[in-house]
């Protein structure tokens, strides 16, 4: 039998203070990101902010600069350009405007037709979101996050002792905050797809934590004479290989999605990759230490 990790005896809990610093920073960045999103300073996707995004596929390679100049001459302001040179694609995004829906898209198409007459294009996709729908999608996303958190809390409370519940919940929040924070710092778009990824991460990150907690619970019953910290360390070491392997398989598929899944799903896959890595880290370095600190070193009531 192949074992990547065998009979490890790492003092995970002893490193909890280093972990707390790292996690603290990650969480704070995440909280800052939430505040910025709420106050409208983050790079919100047009599904949340409202606006227009059009993706063009050109026959010949396009110079991004020439498109920018053409659009500026056409009187367009406040637009973002992104290109996918390998496929001659460009994405133009214009955020919230007072104009009637449909007008911006028309202007952009006319401008490109006039200014780049010898490079024909097809419109890959058009997305126009009015302010009312944008607001509704924001509200729905907020509700989704709230209900997912609530659902997970209820389940954890139902299945675990309170202090384990606290540990699992904090670890889950930590993962979501960390990924959101990293996305925010990278300046990537905060959109519906990212929220979906974050909720998926929340669900999945709990999986890893549950595996660790199950073993801790079991070992606490058997090894009543040892300190909680020792039992926790032993349990984490025992389940280390499965924690890493379950994450590896999901990581493998996420990486496949990232590289081959196409442009639309790119950010989703990126968030999943980060989420799986952070989730694995947190189930080892965050969840159990929180339980230890919250619950004290001894004695643990049986459940």
């Amino acid at each position, binding site marked *: *039998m*192949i074992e*990547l990790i065998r009979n490890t005896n790492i003092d995970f809990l002893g490193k909890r203070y280093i972990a707390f610093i790292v996690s603290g920073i990650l969480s704070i960045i995440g909280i800052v990101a939430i505040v910025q999103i709420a106050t409208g300073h983050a790079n919100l996707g047009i599904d949340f902010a409202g606006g227009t995004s059009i993706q063009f596929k050109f026959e010949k390679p396009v110079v991004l600069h020439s498109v920018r100049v053409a659009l500026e001459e056409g009187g367009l302001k406040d637009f973002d350009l992104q290109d996918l040179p390998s496929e001659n694609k460009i994405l133009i995004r214009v955020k919230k405007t007072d104009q009637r*829906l*449909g007008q911006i898209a*028309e202007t952009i198409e006319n401008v490109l037709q006039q200014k780049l007459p010898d490079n024909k294009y*097809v*419109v*890959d*996709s*058009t*997305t*126009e*979101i*009015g302010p*009312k*729908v944008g607001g509704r*999608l924001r509200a*729905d*996303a907020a509700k*989704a996050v709230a*209900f*997912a958190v609530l*659902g*997970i809390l209820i*389940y954890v409370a139902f*299945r675990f002792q309170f202090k384990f519940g606290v540990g699992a919940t904090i670890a889950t929040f930590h993962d979501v905050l960390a990924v959101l924070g990293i996305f925010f710092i990278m300046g990537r778009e905060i959109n*519906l*797809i990212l929220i*979906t990824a974050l*909720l*998926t991460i929340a*669900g999945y990150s*709990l*999986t890893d934590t*549950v*595996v660790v907690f*199950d073993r801790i619970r079991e070992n606490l019953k058997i090894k009543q004479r040892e300190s909680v910290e020792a039992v926790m360390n032993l349990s984490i070491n*025992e*389940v280390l*290989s*499965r924690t890493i*392997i*379950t994450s590896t*398989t*999901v*990581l*493998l*598929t*996420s*990486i*496949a*999605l990232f*590289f*081959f*899944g*196409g442009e*639309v*799903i790119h950010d*989703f896959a990126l968030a999943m990759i980060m989420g799986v890595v952070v989730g694995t880290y947190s189930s080892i370095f965050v969840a159990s230490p929180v339980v230890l600190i919250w619950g004290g070193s001894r004695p643990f009531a049986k459940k």
Partner: protein
Amino acid sequence: MKKNVLWRLALIGITIILAVIFFLPNTPAFRYMPQWWQQNMPDKGIVLGLDLQGGLHLVFEVEGDKAVELTTERYASRMKDILAKKKLIVETSVSGLNISVSPSSSDVRKAIEDSFPTLAPVEAAGKLVYRLAGSEAKRIKDTSVDQALETIRNRIDQFGVSEPTILRQGENEIVVQLPGVKDPKRAIDLIGKTAQLEFKMVDDEAKTAAELPQSIAPGEEENLIQQFSGKIPEDDEILFEKKVNKETGVVRKIPLLVKKQAALTGDLLSDAKVNIDSRFSEPYVSVSFNDAGAKTFEDVTGANVKKRMAIILDNTVYSAPVIQERIAGGNAQITGSFTMDEAKDLSIVLRAGALPAPLKMLQNVTVGPSLGRDSIEAGKMAGIIGTVAVIIFMIFYYRLSGIIADFALLLNIVLLLGAMASLNATLTLPGIAGMILAIGMAVDSNVLMFERMRDELRAGKTPRAAVDSGYHKAFWTIFDSHVTTLITAAVLFQFGTGPIKGFAVTLSLGVSINLFTALIGTKSVFDIINSKRELTKLSI
């Protein structure tokens, strides 16, 4: 072999067969199946979402307030006629939602309240002012949404889209989904046009008419109306005709002074069709009126010979020909340098009728067919590579047991596709991602079991005992870890938009099926191996 194992094997076999039957329509093989199969077996399979097959997802708001305004105007003009029959001569004027009536005698008041029970008096000193009662206004708003829905459905049916979805959403919104439409802009125009056709007399006799400029540049309309406000007769308004110079392509707007009161409106139409002008080979739309419309048209043209009549659609003048003679028979032509498509669409909206209120577009998500195809290809690619990577990893790490897990994984994929097909679920791009993630998670349950079995082996148990207790001890861990994912999937399903819903569906199905394959499938294989003879060694 134990009975219990046989029973489980049969269950697995049946589910595989069912999955294949349901998924068959999504494969080319379905077309080669015998006739009776194609007719009697499931033939729909998994439906592709708009993001994968290309198409439009539109959300419109019906501006119900405008419908109430229009109704108020109709009430005001009807009021004059009805009271005249009771020998009461009154003047009415509409401002916003209020109808003011003069003179304000008690006879008039009684007559109005008898004839118009849905009008409610508005407090006004010494004046008779009415507006539609709150409940009536609400009813009008409500029915305007249903009428708009019906009109849109008519238009789309005539435009020709296969499997459109047209739904009412909430209080005043309409969702329109048009899969596979090639010319999105045309479809949006067709749906969004109010198509209020009006025939109004041009007031060339008014003094102001001569003072209007010949033509103005587009965008100057508001300024001109502003400039002439107060100078034009009270029952007149300025509308514009668009003229395009065919050689230079320059667009000019020609102002026309017309009567506010329409001589005739599009609700009296019986038909509209496209014809081609033989001289200029230019398409135009010829409309025919119903009997009442034909009669009015004849009267109006008879009374206004040598005057101009403007043909107006949604407040834009299409043409304003001079009436040469009384026109009987109830036919009219709408010209206006149309392209063939424009003329065709115009005839569709005229036939389908006007919307009861203008529509405001709230959301438009259009995906071109090529992007959809690319996405499917990319999804397949990522799926295959992800699956192969996991399969290789599992064999590398768990050897023979890894192969068992890989069988479970493949079983998982087959069942997932079958389950989606049996529900006719919609596969979206995030849905593909959900599937691929589910593949990654599918082996997790096996990993948890295998690691448990290894623990038990290390503890010195026999392979059979290790399998049994490993399986039992891992059960709750597996269960817990799946439930948490299911919770988030359920929430995403509840609050997500179309594509996200697709993700929630595939993920939750994937996770549930995973429970089945791990707990029934993998376990059965181990049981079979163990039942033959007592193993001395477990390749794990």
